[in-house]
Structures are given as structure tokens and as C-alpha cells.
């Protein structure tokens, strides 16, 4: 734990009650439904969730990158100004200059026809009006900063001459060229080998400290979150289900979905014979979301019929200063851990095996 908790530092980004949707031929997709959170300077804020949970749309909406998304409600306050009401030209200046994005796939996010150095330098040329030479010098400096050896020579190379890890470093170099206050990293390591992942994340965190920015880390990899994040927000079907510090989420989770995610992962301290507990069922469609709590059809703890399938649970304070959960029965989850879940499943499987053996016809 740090002595000064992140929350005492400057609030960079404050998202308030954001609702965003897409209109498709099949109906309205409510991709983001009432999401609120703050990101502070110097903090790594992780948004976790499975595919289609709305985590990327939330981040992209902050930058205004999806032209087809409609924001129905809410505010996105960037240093106190609501970016949703800013003219496009102002938003463009924020993009790249103040908030920069690191994309998931460095293979496709770099332009194949320009040298890496030119692409990095272009940031400085556009946002700071640097000349060609100065921009190239900056690009070399940035490549050096992200740990690319012989940066001067590499800057003259094209993306296809880089390895995957180098490309992701180059992407990071590009994003930090103008020393942005906030970095949005959308699955920054998904396309990389595990060994390279660690290096890239290390670079990312080192850079954050160097330029004193905040990071929004979007990922479905809880391992990445555990190592890096200060705050964690878990999303499911476009809604926030739990929010808190990394410790609170990992060790004192008060939401069945978060518990489910954790229990489905193997851990390094496992003996090897612990069962992995899957979350049964499939993620819900955002067009036709289950009534009440969207997670109730897959929830082990759901009390049906009852509140779970009739009322949408609000995100509320459940413990500590800021540990919030959107579960009607969050209090009953106190003391429930991954281990209890696993033990339960172990038991259930034994029973099921007995039944199978006893009644083959059933």
C-alpha cells in the first residue's frame, strides 16, 4: 500500500452515469449502461470484463472514436470539462495530446508504408508543431525510452521489420510522445507472447511514473490486473458490477461474477488438483438483456424467483471507503472466497458423479 492513496491526487477523468448505445438492424445495443468512475493522476485503473461487456466501448467513447455510438446520458469530464459537449476540433486536440491510446494489435495499428520513426515523429509534428528533424530526434528518444536498442537505426525501419514486442513498444512510444496525462491501453498485451507481455507491461508502468500520467488498462486478463492495477472496475453486460482497490477485488470480492472470474483461473500457488470453476452459460446479448440483474441466469448465488430477476441492482458501497458492488446480496458474500467456491464445486461434482454412476439411464 502506498502512503498517499491515489484518491488524494488530482482527478483527471471523471465519467458520470454514462449511457451509450448502438442502433443495429437487430435492435438497440446498450453497450454502456450507467457507468461512473474517476481516474486519478499516477493511478492504474483497470477495466475488466469478458468480450462484449462494454469495456472497450467505454474507453473509445471517452476519445470519441466510434462514430456510430450514441451517448444518451451522462458526462465525461476531462480535467473538469465535459468532452461530450466540446467541438470536434477541441476533442481532436485532446486525443493524442492529452489522452493517448495504445491499441491491442501492434501488427495492424502501425501504418505499413511509413517508417516507425516517422510515425512516432508525426505525433510531435502534429501536436507540438516540431520540424522534420526535431520530430525524428524525438522519435529516436522515445524509442530509446521504451527500451528499443539501437533506436537511431530502428527508427528508419518499417513496422514489418520489427518483432511483435518491438512493435508494441513502438506503439507505446508513439502514445507517449506528447507526454499525455492519461494513457488508455486496450488489451495491450493480448497479441504478445507471455514473456514479452511482462516486458511490455514493465515498460508501460515505467513510462507512467516517468511522465506522471494515469493509465486506464482494459483487459480480460486478471493476472495482468493483479500485478499492475491500483483500482479495478469489473463490467458485465454494459454495467459496472464491482469496483474497488485491487486487494478488495481479489481478496474480498463482494460480487458473484468477480468471484466466478477468479475461481475460473488457475493460480500459481495451486497444488495442481484444485478444480477450476467455470461460469456456466454464455454472456448475455446486449440487445435482449436478462431482467433484473443481468448476471442472474448464470449466478450460483441467485435467489429465484426474487429480487435477482426483477430488480436491477444498484452499485452501492459495501465495504471500506470505496468498495462498491452491484449485488442485492453482496453482504452475504462476506467471507466467501475462491476456495469456498472451489470446495463447493468439488462436492457437487462428486455428487453428480455418484448420480451418473448409479442411474445410467437418467
Amino acid at each position, binding site marked *: 500500500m502506498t502512503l498517499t492513496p491515489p484518491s488524494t491526487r488530482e482527478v483527471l477523468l471523471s465519467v458520470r452515469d454514462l449511457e451509450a448505445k448502438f442502433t443495429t438492424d437487430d435492435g438497440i445495443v446498450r453497450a454502456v449502461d450507467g457507468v461512473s468512475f474517476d481516474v486519478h493522476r499516477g493511478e492504474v485503473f483497470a477495466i475488466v470484463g469478458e468480450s462484449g461487456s462494454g469495456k472497450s466501448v467505454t474507453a473509445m467513447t471517452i*476519445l470519441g*472514436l466510434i462514430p456510430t455510438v450514441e451517448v444518451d446520458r451522462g458526462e465525461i469530464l476531462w480535467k473538469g470539462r465535459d468532452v461530450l459537449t466540446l467541438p470536434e476540433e477541441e476533442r*481532436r486536440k485532446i486525443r493524442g495530446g492529452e489522452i493517448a491510446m495504445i491499441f491491442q494489435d501492434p501488427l495492424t495499428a502501425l*501504418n505499413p508504408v511509413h517508417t516507425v520513426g516517422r510515425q512516432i515523429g508525426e505525433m510531435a509534428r502534429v501536436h507540438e508543431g516540431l520540424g522534420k528533424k526535431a520530430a525524428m530526434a524525438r522519435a529516436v528518444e522515445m524509442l530509446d525510452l521504451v527500451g528499443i536498442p539501437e533506436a537511431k537505426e530502428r527508427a528508419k525501419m518499417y513496422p514489418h521489420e520489427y518483432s511483435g514486442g518491438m512493435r508494441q513498444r513502438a506503439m507505446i512510444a508513439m*502514445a507517449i510522445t506528447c507526454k499525455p496525462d492519461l494513457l488508455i491501453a486496450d488489451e495491450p498485451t493480448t497479441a504478445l507472447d507471455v514473456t514479452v507481455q511482462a516486458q511490455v507491461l514493465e515498460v508501460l508502468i515505467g513510462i507512467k511514473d516517468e511522465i506522471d500520467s494515469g493509465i486506464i488498462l482494459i483487459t480480460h486478463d486478471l493476472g495482468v490486473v493483479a500485478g499492475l492495477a491500483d483500482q479495478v472496475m469489473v463490467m458485465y453486460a454494459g454495467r459496472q458490477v464491482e469496483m474497488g482497490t485491487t486487494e478488495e477485488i481479489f481478496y474480498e470480492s463482494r460480487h458473484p461474477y468477480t468471484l466466478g472470474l477468479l475461481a475460473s483461473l488457475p493460480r500459481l500457488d495451486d497444488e495442481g488438483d484444485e478444480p477450476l470453476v467455470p461460469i456456466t452459460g454464455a454472456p448475455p446479448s446486449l440487445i435482449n438483456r436478462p431482467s433484473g440483474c443481468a448476471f442472474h441466469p448464470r449466478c450460483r448465488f441467485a435467489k429465484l424467483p426474487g429480487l435477482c430477476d426483477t430488480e436491477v441492482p444498484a452499485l452501492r458501497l459495501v465495504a471500506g471507503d470505496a468498495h462498491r458492488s452491484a449485488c442485492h446480496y453482496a453482504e452475504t458474500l462476506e467471507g466467501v472466497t475462491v476456495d469456498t467456491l472451489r470446495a463447493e464445486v468439488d462436492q457437487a461434482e462428486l455428487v453428480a458423479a455418484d448420480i451418473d454412476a448409479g442411474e445410467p439411464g437418467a
Partner: protein
Amino acid sequence: MTAHRGVGPSTELEAMEPGGGDGLTDVAAARPLRKDVWRRFKSNKLAVVGLGLVIILVLTAVFAPLIATHTIIERDSGHFREGPSGSHFFGTDTIGRDVFSRVVYGARVSLKIGISATSIALVIGLFLGAVAGFFGRALDSLIMRITDIFLAIPYIVLAVAIASLLGRSENTVIVVLGFTGWLGICRIVRSSFLSLRQLEYVEAATALGYSKWRIMFRHILPNALQPIIVYGTIAVGSVILSEAALSFLGVGPVDPTPAWGLMVADGKSVLAVAPHMLFFPGAAIFITVLAFVFIGDGLRDALDPKLK
């Protein structure tokens, strides 16, 4: 490989050789694109021939006064419609002018018209195609309907109309062919932009705060250039052909101008007595157009070997 190129009779085997080399360089992936393209281009014999012919054409146009034996208006009195001879390599025309010198100077006319008209067409087609493909929606529909309308107007009718407005001259031909030739380029550019704007590096460029115009012309256009280069090269040839057709129909430049099409038109009425008057300028058109098409084909194969 290059040492014995074009010497041995085993052309097919040789043509395959660079193909085999391709796989290796792809794995190495270290060779700059330009060198790769040139290497593949070189291996296409027709393309090299085309390039050689175009170089000769350009040199002819530049050094026309040195190459030509006469001026384009000088009359050799008493020598009308004479066949090729020592003093007139390609013979003389109806009023005694030297056909060889006129064909040589004609290279200037053809190149000027071919390059200028193609440039106009490229600029219009690139801009409209890029805007249509990038912005999509209403703007796209509008631009596509405009191209439909242009497609429905025969360019020769338009040429006659414009020529009657501006008068017959080289510039008229340039304007007519430039303003009718952009349709194909527009469509190619539009479809490239439609697919390229979906790519992640274009989205990344937006996320980095670049303006729309910068994204269109710095990030997307260079990736869309290959088909444009090919089309543009072939277009120079076809513009020269169209120029000849317009001149032949009497809509192009007027008489003292040594336009090849005009010379063919002059020769057609005296074909039986002086076939050389039609043959030489006709051959010049034929060879020039073919040369540009060969280069275009070679470039297409060299730029995108997968198409082969």
C-alpha cells in the same frame, strides 16, 4: 540471373526463377519494398521493353530539334507524297513536309497531352474518390451519382461541345480528356478507401488526434497507391489513343500542329498512293500506347505479385 537474361531460349524457366526467390525474401523481409518491386519489374521482359520505348519516346520529345531533319512546316517544293528516301526518312506529305520530322515533333504533342490530361484526371479522381470512400454516406452517394452521369456522356460528344466553346487546340484536348478520364480512378480510389478506412492503423491515427485530411492523404492514400500507379500508367497510353481519335475526327489540334492523329487523318484520303503518310504516325501511336500498357501490366505484377 541478370547476366544471362534474354540470351538463352529457356524464357519460361527464367521467368519462374524470380518467383522462387520471392519466397526467400519474404521470409527475410529485410529488403526495401522499392528494390523488390524493381527486381520483379525487371523480370518481366515486355515491361522492360515498354519502359525502353517510353524512355526513347521521352528523349525524342526532349531532343526533337536535334533529331528532326527538317522543321514541321518547311515544304520541300516539288516533293509531294514521296515515299521514304535518304533525305526524307518517312517520306513527305501532301504539301511536301517531312513526315519523319513531324512524327518526331509529334512525340511532344502526344506526351504533353497524355501526361497533362492524365494528371488532371488523377487529381480529380483521387480527390473525389478519397472523399467518397472516406466520408461515405450522403457525400459518397452524391459523388457516385456524378460519376454515373459522366459515364453516360460519350466523351466524343463532350469533346465536340467543348471544342466548339474553346476552339480546337491541344489544350482543348487536355481539358476534354482530363475532365472525362477521372471516373475509373475515382472508383478505384473510393473502393480502396472504403476498405482501408476500416483498418486499425486508421483508427489509431484518429486516436492520436490527427485531422481527417492528414489521415486521408498521409495515412490512407499511400496504402492505396499501387492500383492508382498502374491505372495512371495505362491511362497515359489510352489518353494518347483518345487524342489521336479526337484529332482524326477533327476535334483536336489544328493543322500545323504535328499531332499523330491529325497526320493519320491526312493520310487516310491518300492511302492508296502514299501509304507511308498513314503508316508512320499510325505506327508511332501504336507503339506508344502499347509501351504504356506493357509498363502498366509490369507494374501491376511487380507491385502485387499475388495477382499473378
